[in-house]
């Protein structure tokens, strides 16, 4: 098991290297170019001297290889220096902003997946009848509406008009739930449609398998067969899907955090983008990438736990 984990982690190294290459391309080669810096520096600072200073400050004037190794080094040590705008250490910033993001994304994501699974089970069981069709129509509708519009409408009606939730804001500790409730609700509403459709397909396909029929032939009630055989076997495609969704958590949290003034990584990234705060951008994106890769490794372990055909070691 440990051996497998170690090997699996080693196997992510080439991918990490590739990611470093992408970052290097985006941030150093392009991000360090004259035209680019000219574009993003504040108007009054747009002199050749300030650009040179900027470059020097971030080592963008050094040989390409050194810059690349720097990028790799930054990623490995997770040390990206200080924020351009607040002069705080980036690692400190990340550490400070992670909890809010986690508080928003983790429960929302878990509820989203769980709810989607429940609905998909309902659909698979009532295939072709009205509950299935209703959920299907609602899913398509949910998928087709822009998240931003739903967020605006939700905030306006549920928070402002009805006063069910605070309009926006943040606090430390458990009190944050008050502020998170509406974003959670919106998150789940917006994303559950995709999931239901995918899960339903996976479940329906599994449902038609011969071993499900064999289980029924043993006298197993359909509900139990659904849980024990269909759901478990559908877990492999479902897990794969869940991993693929992880990078999109960033998009979701960027929008919701900004909108509801939640001090999370997404908000940090938006601010960094708007002010072209290079160290913070690098750090945030690296954080997400590492998170994603870690999650993939974890999922591989889960595969092995679910499916005996996936061999460990």
């Amino acid at each position: 098991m440990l051996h497998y984990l170690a090997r699996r982690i080693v196997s992510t190294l080439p991918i990490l290297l590739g990611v470093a290459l992408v970052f290097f391309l985006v941030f150093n080669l392009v991000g360090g170019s004259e035209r680019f810096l000219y574009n993003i520096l504040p108007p009054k600072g747009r002199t050749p001297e300030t650009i040179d200073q900027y470059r020097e400050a971030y080592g963008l004037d050094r040989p390409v290889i050194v810059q690349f190794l720097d990028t790799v080094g930054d990623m490995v040590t997770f040390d990206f220096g200080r924020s351009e705008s607040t002069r705080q250490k980036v690692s400190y910033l990340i550490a400070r902003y992670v909890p809010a993001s986690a508080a928003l994304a983790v429960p929302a994501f878990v509820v989203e997946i769980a709810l989607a699974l429940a609905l998909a089970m309902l659909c698979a069981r009532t295939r072709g009848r009205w509950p299935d069709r209703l959920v299907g129509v609602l899913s398509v509708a949910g998928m087709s509406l822009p998240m931003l519009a739903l967020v605006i409408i939700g905030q306006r009606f549920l928070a402002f008009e009805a006063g069910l939730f605070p309009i926006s804001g943040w606090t430390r500790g458990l009190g944050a739930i008050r502020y998170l409730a509406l974003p959670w609700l919106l998150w789940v509403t917006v994303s559950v449609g995709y999931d239901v459709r995918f899960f339903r397909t996976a479940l329906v396909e599994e449902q038609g398998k011969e071993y499900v029929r064999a289980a029924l032939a043993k006298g197993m009630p359909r509900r139990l067969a659904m849980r024990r055989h269909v759901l478990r076997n559908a877990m492999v495609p479902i897990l794969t899907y869940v991993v693929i969704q992880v990078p999109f958590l960033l998009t979701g949290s960027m929008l919701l955090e900004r909108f509801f003034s939640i001090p999370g990584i997404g908000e940090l990234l938006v601010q960094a983008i708007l002010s072209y705060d290079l160290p913070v951008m690098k750090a945030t994106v690296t954080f997400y990438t590492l998170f994603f890769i870690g999650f993939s490794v974890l999922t591989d372990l889960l595969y092995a736990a679910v499916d005996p055909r996936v061999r460990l070691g």
Partner: protein
Amino acid sequence: MSVERDTASAPRGGVPKPGNAGPGAPRSAAPAGAARPLPARPAGLAAALAAEAPVLDVRNLAAWYFTDEGTVKAVDGVGFKLGKGKTLGLVGESGCGKTATGLAVLGLLPPPGRVVRGEAVLGRRDLLRMPEADLAAMRGRDIAMIFQEPMSALDPLMTAGEQIAECLEMHTALDRRERAEKAVELLASVGVPEPALRAKAWPHELSGGMRQRVVIAMALACDPKVVIADEPTTALDVTVQAQILDLIEDTQERTGMGVILVTHDLAAVAQAADEVAVMYAGVLVETGPVKDVYAHPAHPYTKALLGSIPVVGQAARQLVTIPGRVPNLARLPSGCRFADRCPLAESACRAVEPDLVDLGAGRRVRCILATGRAAR
């Protein structure tokens, strides 16, 4: 019992439309207008003759698939009786409806297939008109199934032992440990070497023959009265086929279960079955004791089929060629379904579909040429 009016009694139009009821419901939704054969058995002499009541009595069963391309009448009026401890060979080529018959009896026909009429009486209860929960309680305990592809019939995420134990879990009060022990016993009884070890094995770790033994152990776990074996040997090698047929025969001797051997292999039926029912394009064309039917096949299809099998050591014998192919079940020809391939067909064969006529001695045949015009 002279003529069992099997198919002719079902009006073509009196079928519930697809879609107005879910796949689970319509088992009981046979058209009110459809005249079914009287369920009451003839009293007196006939009853005395039928000394032993059949364990499974299937009458006038019809199971259709309602597809976008049309209604596929996979099973269109099939009836047979299975005696206690007997084996009935249900033979036919692919697409003749033999598998659908087995699934319909168990209520496991996948959508868009549905049972549109008929009865399957097991222990005085009609399986086709039973609430789902009651049927579930009977499946596995009273009537079980052996599946064709042992690999796909086993859940890849569960050990062999667990899957056998599931059947016990449904129908017995045994606790987890007792079930596991019983599963090992069952594995031993189906001839799996090192059963305790194999009980912990995953399906992908087992060989084809071992898997089929596990599937059989699954079916036998609760000593069912009837086992429907759907092509249990087709996916296996010849040398392993013989082992599996041995196993089914031995088990039957031990437990006295009735077996429906669904197969395309006439040789397997010859050697393992007491009775044979030959299906063609959704209907039975000939039934009777195996020895009689094989010695003197009455239906031209049975005759041709028997003549088309190559046998080792008989290479000099000219094989019979059956021209053409099985008709499309969504667009059946009028008259006898075999007429277009039958070397003896006359114009009368294409006019009216013949009934399944009793020839005496337990034999029935659906052919006007075999029964003579007088019998109609």
